[in-house]
């Protein structure tokens, strides 16, 4: 093995070689032939019928690949096994394919059909892995196939497959950048995905394919912020980094006003070390700030979305993953108000305990941060003390940080610490320490003399490197105040005899030349010595000797004329052209001849001009123009694919772009109202936009806390719920403050006192006052009542009213609720059951709030609801729902009798259509069944038997109820696929002693689920249906006279939605009301329009492919509206 691996090293694992490798094999022929033989073995094994042999062969082949050996000649033998049933063989074949397909494109094509089949497999893992491999095969010819597969997978019902689709996008993009536009469409669609699983991957794809399309983020911004905490670690990093950039383009600089005050303070600290550029920048900033301040004279108010981002990322500072912590830290550094940035220091200091590689990166970033915000790390000064066991690169970075942190108060401690470092055995580190001392000395005037003395002492150090480094640093320090230090210069002049390090010698010579007036006697002597050794010096020293000679010639030509001539002559014949050139140039300049031009007059000015003192500054200065934590920042150079961190905008772009479509928004008339709305609007809409299902999870466990079932779903539910709850309370506090700023306090207080719709908005992002009131109300109520599952829809209904109505609405709402609560089974139902129900509710909502309803809501495509169901299987249920468009279905839930108390011998059974998606099968209608045991004895093992169904109809029975104690009732949910017909489902209801024949017949309105369309989509779909591009046209119109109580829009909406499970579609005209839904079973669209004419006249239009459904629906709605 060792020989062959050595051979591999040499080969460099070059896989590009299509021809057999053996020819190049420098190793012995023996190995070559045995290799060859073994390949034959492998081929035989691969051709065999036994999976175990195949597996063994594949394992060996993969081992070859892992060692970088070429196994490409086995391609035909391997690719045959792509359809192998054994999953491990298959996987290994995939590994092989991905590795070699690029080289053997033609053969690779043989495998494509297998993957295409795999893409249709019922097992999501197989679908996903087929897509993975298909998209990993870098064969250009299959680009269209990949594109198709990705598009399809993007609407797969399994979030895992959708995630894989997101991963496949960058793969396809790198293979064929021309697909960009189409891929952006897919990205846009996946960005709207609600699941945490997909979020990280799609943002990754976004960053790779179209990072410039920041507009795609608007609608998803709040959702991403809210999902963040539940996204897996790696996704968090990518999302946070992207959101940092986004925020930089969308929000105002939170420090814009402070910069006036603080910049002054900063300056005092920095004192002289700010160079000119920097001053300019500051000035500019100041001017800008001043201008802004003048223009506004208004305190800066942070955009609530900006605040949302800061708030939601902060807990992640506690992540165990260093990359996440760093991502949050850079976000705070770039986006947070100065006063808040401090929170990241502690977390970053913590990372310093981690692996040395992590330390290295963190220290680099801390070094940059300490320049801008020193105060933040000052309390942690000691954490940056250096240990003798630290690797040198870490030591040097720590030194950098310590130097940046040095100020008047801590400098003495730091310098003493430095003193111990100088004794270290690590010479590179010692040199760095000396430089650090030099920097401290330049930055802090008070200690300059102390440092200088210390450094001078080092000149007598035994180690030449130490001395040399000191000389270089002293030179720089002396330049600041040469007059006072002729002693030191003299002392250094003596060192020229001993110091051999070129840089140090050059520094000394430069110093003497520059300040030769201070050491008039020594300088010529030094030149004399140097002239003697000139030929043996390093180039850098030679150049300085020439300089010294020139300067002395100009100031003291009497003593040095000959020496200078001598040096220049030597230099004239030097090997190095730089030195020859310099000598020639200087000779012309300083030695007056006939030919010498006008310049020589100015020689003195040229050579002895006052030179500005060097600025010793941190190499990390201004590195923060790179996004911190990035590779580019670390390298201080732009890496490929780096996205610039934009500057803050002058004025904030329209914040409403992040609002997610709201159908009816209050038309504010009075000024005051408008003002308020401005503040509220973003709050509001965000809760609408991304609300996820958590809320209901929340409510659910409120009612049944502590007794969740052990199922996984409930586990996840309860988890998110809890975090939700907490976030809520925290948020509330914060918001309170916000609101105070917004001067809306009074109003709030008044509102708070009124109990409001509970439940409606608990999502993290929802923060408007309105929401808050609601929440407050909700909390109050929660303590009192327990069952809240219906409340949500309640609030939804009122939400859809205009705001002005809301106040009065709320009261009626409560009444209504009481009513429903009364009509509903008592809260003591099985908890499990009620939970399930609420979860389904949340699902529904999730569906509701697809912010941009995807155009795929075509009759054939029911992926939406599918995906939702799978989402439920364990997705983050972080968000909450506020449903402006849905109209309370449950307020009008009608109970039907399945089994009368008397016929059932004491067992009464009622059922209703709960209008929630049935999670195990989206094609089924959920039927909620309530059993009440009116007898005095227990009823046992309630279950369903012998369903007699029309062809195509299916039933999903409820789990058997083992015991129903006397006097109790219990609720269960079963699913029935009615196949979009109103045929009854017949079955037997059994107890442990009796069987009852029962049947459930659905009203036509219950056979559909709401579909969420925008006005335009509605129109488009209606067009499509009319023109029969799909299966046949169908429109049924009926004129009607509205019933007496049925004149207002509100009532119409209520009546229609209670008759049929439809959702409201926004509509521009107030004469028209539109509704949309899909049939549960086949997903055909159902579109309903009610147009009011003058008086009580109205026109009802129903569009539906299914003629029977359409006709029946018209009949039902007509009846409802004319009553």
């Amino acid at each position, binding site marked *: 093995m060792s020989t062959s691996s050595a051979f591999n090293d040499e080969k460099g694992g070059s896989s590009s070689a299509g021809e057999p490798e053996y020819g190049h094999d420098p190793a012995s022929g023996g190995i070559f032939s045995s290799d060859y033989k073994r390949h034959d073995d492998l081929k035989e094994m691969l051709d065999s019928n036994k999976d175990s042999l195949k597996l063994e062969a594949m394992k060996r082949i993969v081992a070859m690949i892992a060692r970088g050996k070429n196994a490409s000649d086995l391609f035909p033998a391997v690719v045959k096994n792509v359809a192998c049933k054994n999953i491990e063989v298959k996987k290994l074949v995939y590994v092989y394919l991905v590795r070699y397909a690029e080289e053997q494109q033609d053969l690779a094509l043989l495998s494509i059909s297998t993957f295409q089949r795999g893409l249709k497999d019922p097992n999501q893992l197989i679908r996903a892995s087929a897509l993975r491999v298909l998209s990993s095969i870098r064969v250009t010819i299959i680009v269209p196939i990949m594109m198709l597969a990705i598009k399809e997978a993007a609407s797969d019902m399994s979030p895992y497959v959708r995630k894989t689709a997101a991963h496949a996008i960058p793969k396809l993009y790198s293979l064929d950048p021309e697909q960009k536009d189409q891929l952006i469409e897919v990205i846009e669609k996946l960005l709207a995905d609600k699941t945490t699983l997909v979020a990280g991957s799609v943002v990754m794809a976004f960053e790779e394919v179209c990072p410039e399309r920041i507009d795609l983020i608007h609608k998803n911004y709040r959702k991403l912020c809210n999902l963040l905490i539940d996204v897996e670690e790696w996704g968090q990093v990518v999302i946070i980094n992207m959101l940092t950039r986004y925020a930089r383009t969308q929000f105002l600089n939170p420090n814009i006003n402070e910069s006036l005050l603080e910049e002054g303070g900063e300056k005092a600290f920095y004192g002289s070390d700010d160079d000119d550029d920097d001053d300019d920048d500051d000035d500019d900033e100041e001017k800008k700030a001043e201008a802004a301040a003048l223009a506004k004279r208004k305190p800066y108010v942070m955009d609530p979305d900006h605040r949302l981002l800061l708030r939601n990322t902060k807990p992640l500072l506690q992540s165990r993953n260093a990359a996440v912590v760093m991502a949050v830290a850079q976000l705070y550094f770039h986006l947070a108000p100065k006063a808040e940035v401090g929170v990241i220091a502690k977390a970053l200091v913590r990372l310093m305990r981690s692996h040395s590689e992590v330390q290295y990166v963190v220290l680099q970033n801390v070094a940059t941060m300490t320049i801008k915000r020193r105060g933040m790390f000052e309390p942690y000064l000691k954490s940056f003390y250096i240990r003798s066991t630290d690797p*040198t690169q870490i030591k040097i970075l720590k030194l950098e940080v310590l130097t940046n942190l040095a100020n008047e108060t801590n400098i003495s401690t730091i310098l003493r610490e430095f003193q111990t470092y100088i004794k270290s055995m690590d010479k590179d580190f010692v040199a760095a320490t000396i430089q650090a001392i030099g920097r401290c000395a330049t930055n802090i005037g008070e200690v300059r003399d102390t440092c200088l003395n210390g450094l001078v002492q080092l000149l007598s150090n035994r180690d030449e490197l130490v001395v040399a480094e000191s000389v270089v640093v002293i030179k720089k320090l002396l330049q600041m105040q040469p007059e006072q230090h002729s002693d030191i210069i003299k002392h250094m002049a003596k060192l020229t005899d001993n110091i051999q390090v070129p840089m140090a010698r050059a520094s000394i010579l430069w110093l003497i030349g520059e300040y030769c007036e201070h050491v008039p006697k020594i300088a010529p002597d030094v030149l004399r010595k140097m002239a003697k050794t000139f030929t043996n010096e390093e180039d850098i020293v030679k150049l300085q000797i020439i300089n010294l000679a020139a300067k002395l010639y100009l100031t003291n030509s009497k003593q040095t004329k000959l020496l200078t001539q001598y040096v220049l002559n030597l230099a004239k014949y030097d090997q190095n052209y730089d030195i020859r050139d310099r000598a020639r140039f200087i000779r012309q300049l300083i030695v007056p001849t006939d030919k010498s031009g006008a310049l020589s007059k100015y020689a003195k000015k040229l050579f002895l001009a006052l030179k500005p003192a060097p600025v010793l500054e941190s190499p990390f200065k201004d590195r923060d123009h790179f996004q911190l934590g990035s590779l580019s920042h670390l390298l201080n150079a732009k890496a490929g694919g780096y996205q610039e961190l934009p500057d803050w905008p002058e004025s904030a772009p329209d914040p409403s772009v992040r609002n997610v479509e709201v159908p009816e928004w209050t038309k504010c008339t009075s000024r005051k109202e408008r003002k308020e709305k401005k503040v509220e609007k973003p709050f509001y809409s965000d809760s609408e936009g991304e609300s996820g299902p958590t809320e209901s999870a929340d409510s659910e466990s409120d009612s049944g806390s502590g007794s969740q079932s052990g199922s996984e779903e409930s586990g996840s539910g309860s988890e998110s719920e809890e975090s939700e709850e907490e976030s809520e309370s925290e948020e509330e506090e914060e918001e309170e403050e916000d609101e105070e700023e917004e001067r809306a306090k009074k109003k709030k207080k008044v509102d708070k006192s009124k109990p409001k719709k509970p439940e409606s908005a608990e999502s993290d992002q929802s923060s408007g006052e309105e929401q808050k009131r609601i929440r407050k109300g909700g909390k109050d109520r929660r303590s009192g009542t327990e069952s809240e599952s219906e409340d949500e829809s309640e609030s939804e209904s009122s939400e859809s009213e205009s705001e002005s109505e809301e106040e009065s609405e709320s009261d009626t709402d409560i009444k209504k609720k009481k009513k429903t609560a009364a009509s509903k089974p008592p809260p003591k139902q099985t908890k499990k059951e009620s939970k399930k129900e609420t979860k389904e509710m949340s699902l529904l909502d999730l569906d509701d709030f697809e912010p941009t309803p995807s155009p795929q809501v075509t009759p054939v495509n029911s992926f939406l609801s599918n995906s939702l169901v799978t989402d439920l299987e364990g997705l983050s249920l972080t968000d909450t729902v506020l449903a402006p468009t849905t109209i309370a279905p449950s307020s009008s839930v009608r109970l039907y009798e399945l089994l009368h108390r008397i016929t059932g011998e004491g067992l009464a059974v009622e059922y209703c259509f709960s209008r929630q998606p049935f999670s195990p099968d989206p094609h089924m209608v959920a039927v909620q069944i309530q059993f009440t045991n009116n007898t005095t004895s227990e009823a046992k093992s309630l279950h369903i038997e012998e369903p007699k169904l029309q062809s195509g109809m299916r039933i999903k029975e409820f789990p058997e109820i083992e015991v129903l104690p006397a006097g109790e009732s219990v609720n269960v949910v079963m699913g029935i696929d009615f196949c979009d017909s109103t045929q009854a489902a017949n079955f037997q209801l059994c107890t442990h002693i009796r069987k009852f024949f029962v049947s459930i017949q659905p009203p036509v309105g219950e056979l559909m689920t709401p579909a969420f369309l925008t006005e335009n989509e509605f129109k488009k779909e209606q067009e499509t249906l009319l023109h029969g591009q799909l299966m046949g046209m169908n429109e049924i119109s009926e004129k009607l006279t509205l019933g007496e109580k049925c004149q207002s829009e509100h009532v119409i909406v209520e009546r229609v939605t209670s008759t049929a499970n439809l959702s409201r579609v926004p509509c521009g005209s107030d004469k028209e009301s539109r509704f949309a839904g899909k049939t549960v079973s086949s997903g055909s669209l159902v579109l309903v329009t009610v147009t009011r004419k003058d008086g009580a006249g109205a026109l009802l239009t129903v569009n539906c492919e299914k003629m029977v459904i359409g006709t029946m629906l018209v009949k039902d709605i007509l009846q409802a509206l004319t009553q």
Partner: protein
Amino acid sequence: MIHSLFLINNAGDIFLEKHWKSVISRSVCDYFFEAQDKAGEPDNVSPVIRTPHHYLINIYREKIFFVSVIQTEVPPLFVIEFLHRVAEMFQDYFGECSEVAIKDNVVIVYELLEEMLDNGFPLATESNILKELIKPPTILRSMVNTITGSSNVGETLPTGQLSTIPWRRAGVKYTNNEAYFDVVEEIDAILDKSGTTVFAEIQGVIDACVKLSGMPDLTLSFMNPRLLDDVSFHPCVRFKRWESERVLSFIPPDGNFRLMSYHVNAQNLVAIPVYVRQNINFFETGSSGRVDITVGPKQTMGKTVENVIVTIHMPKVVLSANLTATQGTYTYDPVTKILVWDIGKLNQQKLPNLKGSLSLQSGAPKPEENPSLNIDLKIQQLAISGLKVNRLDMYVEKYKPFKGVKYVTKAGKFQVLTVPSHV
């Protein structure tokens, strides 16, 4: 993101390569070898190396360099953290992360790497998801597999993959339900010659071994949570609950995991369990030096200090040591110049002492630097910060688990200077 990965041993052999995108020739590692030569010590190899066309981000662990090839901008910590995760996964699967273990299990390693990254972006990094996809090797399983031809690879998507709690799999069942927590604290300290604390802090971790059936929801509370200065959590811990109530509420992963790490900073609160009296002198004449070290217990809250080891990095000129230890044994390695004195248990009555002379290279000047002492120690059943677990409650599941908490204190970077400090 991550383009390729090369595993390189100390001898410079590339013993494994894996590419997630197109193949990158292993000659790219030459840049790494160059940097390695320049750095000398493996520790000093820069974690990020720039080459004309790629960036190499590498970590060094268990004598293996994990070198990843990057082509475009990516947060370096992202890659570093991931590479460490890979190393931990090997550890988890094979019991050790070593060249031998990787070579022996090369197929599993390859399958793991395949699952962990897709197109260079992390896909599944949770140990229990991976273990459902690819079963860890055991002797029994490999035997059964050879006979029956069944595979090591899961056929269905691990349930955790889809849930918000990817760290736990569904359907966990144990006959004995138990949850153990180890509170392990390390003291990082610098003491000066006189024994004054220059710097001290405590780094603690709570490692858990939870074997509970179903989906238990645990709550762990402390007697004195205010002690904790800074904390970081396993993703299972609910941040908000900690913020508001200072309790750890979580649905635990199955098996071993690190629940949290914390930091106690209040310097005055850090009890230093031992004191060291030491004298290390080098004489100007005669090329010799003297050593005299005594270690004794201090602030140990009545517990015994065990496994005490003193390590000294001697200056280069020290050729050999001629010492006597009243307890334990000492060794001096003249190549690495490291003196190790393994004391063992500290005895209150008779304090261990190490005394004797050092011989220096003749003619060499007296060494300038003063070596510092690194102390290693262990105290069982004590968390030096005083942190105490108050109670562990379990919700959701009905059974009664067996619970246990263990405390250990160790020395972390515990250094004693041989020069008087300035503080």
